[in-house]
């Protein structure tokens, strides 16, 4: 046997060495932007005044943000939309999943139709609903007026949040439905059969057997949709550009400060602050739900 000195390390870590280049590059592209933007958030960098450089101001941006009524408003708007949208989507998704689980005739075809909105990109969803909400061309308004109802001012400051929730729910309810349907179809049959033998009504079976068994799946759907809803941007931007305070969600707040007002440092700080707030609330949310 020919002993090779030092070769033990290489052969033990050969696999790691092969993937090392990828890890290094992935971290450069992942960590560096995060680190740099964190640094920028601690400066007063104004894109319109590059000659002033990037003066370091520490936590000043964060402190000003916490007292900025526009920032507080965007937090409230975002949470309101998220809460409303997730509630509607989970409720509607559950109802649809329960109906589809009955395996009635044509359920397969209906399922495909219901999944179509999910395949549309958020920006196209925004365009579709912008047309539906424009009072002068809206078919919704037309049919509401035909049956004698007065259509709401969809994108006014009073009604824009429900309008966004409706548009978002149109797109993402099928996603929730899909998750819950998969859960329903994988429930153990024994408890359901036992309940049937015991003479439980449909409502009792649903309330005392099906829903408790489905709870983990419902929680998963809630968490996934909550994370997704917090990132809402494209659709709201196309609907309203966040022009009014009642539609200025967190992401639009950040983008506006960067691209409309050129406050780069402030915008970076707001994005980190939003991320921290959303993370804290989400952790609390999941903890409460799991209890």
């Amino acid at each position, binding site marked *: 046997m*020919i002993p090779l000195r030092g070769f033990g390390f290489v052969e033990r870590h050969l696999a790691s060495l092969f993937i090392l280049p990828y890890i290094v590059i992935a971290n450069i592209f992942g960590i560096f932007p995060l680190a740099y933007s964190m640094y920028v958030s601690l400066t007063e960098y104004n*894109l319109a*005044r*590059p000659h002033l450089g990037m003066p370091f101001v520490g936590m000043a941006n964060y402190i000003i943000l916490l007292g900025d009524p526009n920032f507080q408003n965007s937090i409230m708007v975002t949470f309101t939309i998220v809460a409303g949208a997730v509630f509607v989507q989970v409720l509607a998704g559950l109802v649809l999943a329960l109906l589809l689980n009955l395996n009635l005739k044509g359920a397969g075809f209906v399922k495909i139709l219901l999944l179509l909105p999910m395949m549309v990109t958020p920006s196209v969803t925004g365009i579709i609903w912008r047309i539906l909400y424009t*009072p*002068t061309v809206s078919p919704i308004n037309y049919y509401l007026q035909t049956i004698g109802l007065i259509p709401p001012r969809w*994108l006014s400051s009073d009604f824009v949040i429900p309008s966004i929730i409706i548009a978002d729910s149109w797109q993402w309810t099928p996603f929730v439905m899909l998750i819950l349907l998969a859960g329903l179809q994988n429930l153990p049959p024994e408890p359901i059969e036992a309940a049937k033998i015991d003479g439980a009504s449909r409502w009792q079976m649903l309330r005392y057997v099906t829903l408790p068994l489905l709870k983990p799946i419902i929680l998963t759907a809630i968490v996934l949709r909550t994370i997704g809803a917090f990132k809402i941007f494209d659709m709201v931007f196309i609907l309203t550009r966040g*022009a009014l305070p009642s539609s200025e969600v967190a992401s639009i707040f950040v983008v506006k400060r960067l691209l*409309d007002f050129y406050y780069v440092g402030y915008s970076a700080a707001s994005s980190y602050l939003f991320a921290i707030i959303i993370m804290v609330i989400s952790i609390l949310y999941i903890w409460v739900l799991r209890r």
Partner: protein
Amino acid sequence: MKKSEKKESEDPEQNAERADPPEKDRRGYLKTVGALVAGLAVGGAAAWLGKPAERLPGATVTERVTETVTETVTTTTAAKEISVLGVDCEQTRKILDITRESFEKEFGITVNMEISGTGEIMTKLPTMLAAAACPYDVIVYPGDSAPGLAEYFRPIDDFIEKYDVRLDEFVPALMGYVKFKDQIIGLPWRSDFFLHVYNEEAYENVGIEKPAETWSEFLENALQVNDPPNMYAFAAQGKDFWGITQEFFAYLLSSGGEMFDENMMPMINSDIGVEALTYYVDLFHVHKVTHPESMALGYMEKLFELIGGRVASIFEWPWSWTEAQNPEKSVIVGKCGGWTVPGNVIPGRMFAGGWGTFIPKESKKAEEAFQWCNWITQPKWEKEVVMRKGDTCPVRIATLNDPELAAEFKVFEGLSKSSSVCIQGPNFPEWNECRQILFRYMHDAYDEKLTPKETLDKAAEEWHDVLEKAGYYA
């Protein structure tokens, strides 16, 4: 003998394996690594050797054959090419069609234009310029937003002098958008003069022969022509932040008001400002001559109401008049008038809008880029663009006053008059922010949550805070 010692000695082969990996595995590893390294080396060498000789664009290769030797000689003539980021509109397309060939013939420079929507330009450009990674030699950019990026554009005073460009040939108000700290940073490319665009037939049907000159006349006309729900006298633009604010400014400025004083103190909440906002709110709530869905109308929806024959007049930039002549979209082709906005002191006095051509500082072909910027606004091309229905937005005074254009396009009389009284718009980076602040509060006034006075006081206060933070009052 201990169990562990016995175990060791009883199985010498296993012991040997534990101490050293098997020879065959070690050789396998070596072969793999060796093959990898060899492959990389061979591949790299092949790529380096096989790389064609660097040749500059436009270079030609000639072969000179001698008796025994064949020489390859490369001569280079650098081909001139500039890249332009243009805005998506008819004017851009017409300019390119009309001037591309003549410019290339005259200067030997090829123009590669990338056309983008306004929104895309305004979102991607700031970060490209800030990163000094702008691949374009010319950028077509809205004048009122240009101050925000002015420090990234190359001053062109040297070229203006070298090529003897007559700046007095441009509408003076438009020059304001291309100046920054007493330096010229661009050339005007497209003008926008705020107009009263109206349905002539709707007016004639109720006996109105000409558009209003004063705001009280406008109200009188509005009350006459208003016939809801078939015809509304006016449509405001409440969806986009520049909509209702520019309508407000039109009244304010034409009635002798100002947005700022000489020390940049906001003056929008002056008596004239309150009168202006009260006027519009009353049009909406008291006289009910404004389209009821105005607060949900964007610029396109507002235009469609006019050219669809459902609204008698709007206040808009000239592109709307051009759209009204399109028979595929409009029912008022040939029956659409364009005149100055009314005014109690100076009708038509409003700030001019428009777009300019700017050269990024990192462009390596600044002079070629400037030659193009200057070429495309020559009067002969401007006139041809208008004649070919490429928007009615010339920037030179001569084109605006051209009698042939005035005879062909009746809006030119209004444009010419507006251009003579319009003023330079606000020219500072925080202007976008100020407009958005005013927009938010104006919505509260239209929704009757605040009085016009409260609205403008709050907006003026926030404007003051923004400008103070930016150091204007130091």
